[in-house]
């Protein structure tokens, strides 16, 4: 069984981004970039399925500038077999990304597509569901457990208030939540090996997907800062402040 995993290069999760003073966006100059953490979990899950003998080939895909090659190499150092970079100088919106992925799915014929549930830059949490909708495939979002057997996926999902288990006929789209697995670290020998694995580059324009933005970002601003607070010296003082000053208890 072939699995397609989509990954996004994003600002590293440890970076506190700054909003540009002209309000046009956030400042990404000289900022550390990494694979989106949820996508790392997606890659790891595909590798585990391969290690269990269920998956035969893992194809990772990323959409963006040529710098995304580095992210794809990381995925291959983890254990992905080959990669495709869909080169685009401009950022695509989730709907256009899903359309690009659909075009790849029709070409590659995977039985499973695994994506992170959310990219930590634009926090949209849409692409997996959009892709499932476009393909009219079943979807198992926010997965914390995934089992595959006899043409079906059994997915345990993180939902408000607990967990839910769904059975989906394959092919299907899965998006990952935090507890699905803990991604492995890459090792130097595997990083070297990954350099020899195939990485195809396709121009986004060759996929017949309209990349025109549907949304216009009029302004990006920093959230209103919180007023500086005070330190209290004791539990008694805290209780008094909450009762008499803040009036919240």
């Amino acid at each position, binding site marked *: 069984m072939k699995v397609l995993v989509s990954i996004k290069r994003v600002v590293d999760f440890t970076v506190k981004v700054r909003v540009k003073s002209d309000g046009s966006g956030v400042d990404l100059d000289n900022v550390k970039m990494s694979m989106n953490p949820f996508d790392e979990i997606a890659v790891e899950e595909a590798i585990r399925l391969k290690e269990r003998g269920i998956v035969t080939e893992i194809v990772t895909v990323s959409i963006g500038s040529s710098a995304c090659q580095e992210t794809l190499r990381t995925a291959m150092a983890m254990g992905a077999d080959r990669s495709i970079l869909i080169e685009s100088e401009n950022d695509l919106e989730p*709907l256009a990304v899903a359309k690009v992925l659909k075009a790849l799915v029709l070409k590659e014929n995977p039985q499973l597509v695994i994506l992170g549930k959310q990219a930590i830059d634009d926090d949209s949490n849409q692409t997996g569901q959009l892709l499932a909708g476009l393909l009219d495939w079943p979807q198992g979002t926010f997965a914390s457990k995934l089992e595959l057997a006899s043409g079906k996926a059994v997915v345990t999902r993180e939902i408000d208030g607990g967990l839910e288990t769904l059975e989906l006929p394959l092919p299907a789209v899965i998006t990952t939540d935090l507890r699905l697995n803990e991604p492995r670290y890459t090792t130097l020998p595997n990083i070297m090996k990954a350099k020899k694995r195939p990485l195809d580059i396709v121009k986004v324009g060759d996929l017949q997907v309209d990349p025109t933005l549907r949304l216009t970002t009029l302004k990006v601003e920093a959230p209103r800062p919180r007023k500086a607070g005070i330190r209290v010296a004791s539990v008694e003082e805290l209780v008094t402040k909450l009762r008499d000053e803040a009036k919240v208890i």
Partner: protein
Amino acid sequence: MSILVLAEHDNVALKPATQHTISAGAKISEKGGNPEVHVLVVGEDAEVVAQASARVAGVNKVFLADASHLGAQTAEAVSAQVLQHIQTGDYSHVLAPATTFGKNVLPRIAARLDVQQISGIIEVLTVDTFIRPIYAGNALATVQSATDAIKVLTVLSTGFDAAAVAQGNAPIESVKEIVNDPSGTRLLGRQLSSGEKLELTAAKVVVSGGRGLQKAENFKLLEALAAKLNAAVGASRAAVDAGFVPNDYQVGQTGKIVAPDLYIAVGISGAIQHLAGMRDSKVIVAINKDPDAPIFQVADYGLVGDALEILPQLTAQL
């Protein structure tokens, strides 16, 4: 034109997040010459949910799509039914709460409508312009959806007050055309936390624990405090990763976003991802033994000390 709100419920009760979403719908209506706000309830034996929706202020009409295969509320079945409903009306906006329910279902609908959804709005500026947090709430983007014919939006409860459950009596109409779901997706089961646990996003007080609580048993200290304050219990990602509490306790960028009147962070250092989930709380209290922990930068009241010693004292003095 009308505005459609997809109700979140468990076939028995309307979830509070829906009231916040109705409130956002009412705001769009206000900006757009007062078109009607409709609520669509998709479920099984969910008449009581439709009745509850009809009582919410600002709702003009409720539609109930009731069928046995809609009871599990899978994204496949619900989205097919919503798409059918959209065709029957003249809808300008489709809204759902930005909860695991809405996040799961709504993009599937947007895909079929060929619309770029806007996720997690916190403010309505005009009928097509909204504010939403990005980068874990470290930036707020004002986005306009000018070209898409229908706006598809998920709504963060923290941005809008809950519409009152008033003496409203909007008419309820049964949806006649029930759409089959050929996807083959089947619900095998749910494991839900006991009913006594207060919903994080609806609670007026939230007490959250982090790695500073050291082990799962120590969350009992936090629960005792929560019981005293009638608070919901939350956690940082570190506490979830350490296995102290289940994932649905998680407050933060990729967990729940809350804005209670009082948020008490205990043994939480205050990573930006956590701050993203609680920084809009009215009053923030931080209890941490590290005086330099970043959580103190957003706290109105900070108390430096050992959480395990302070928690029982605080509970006793309330």
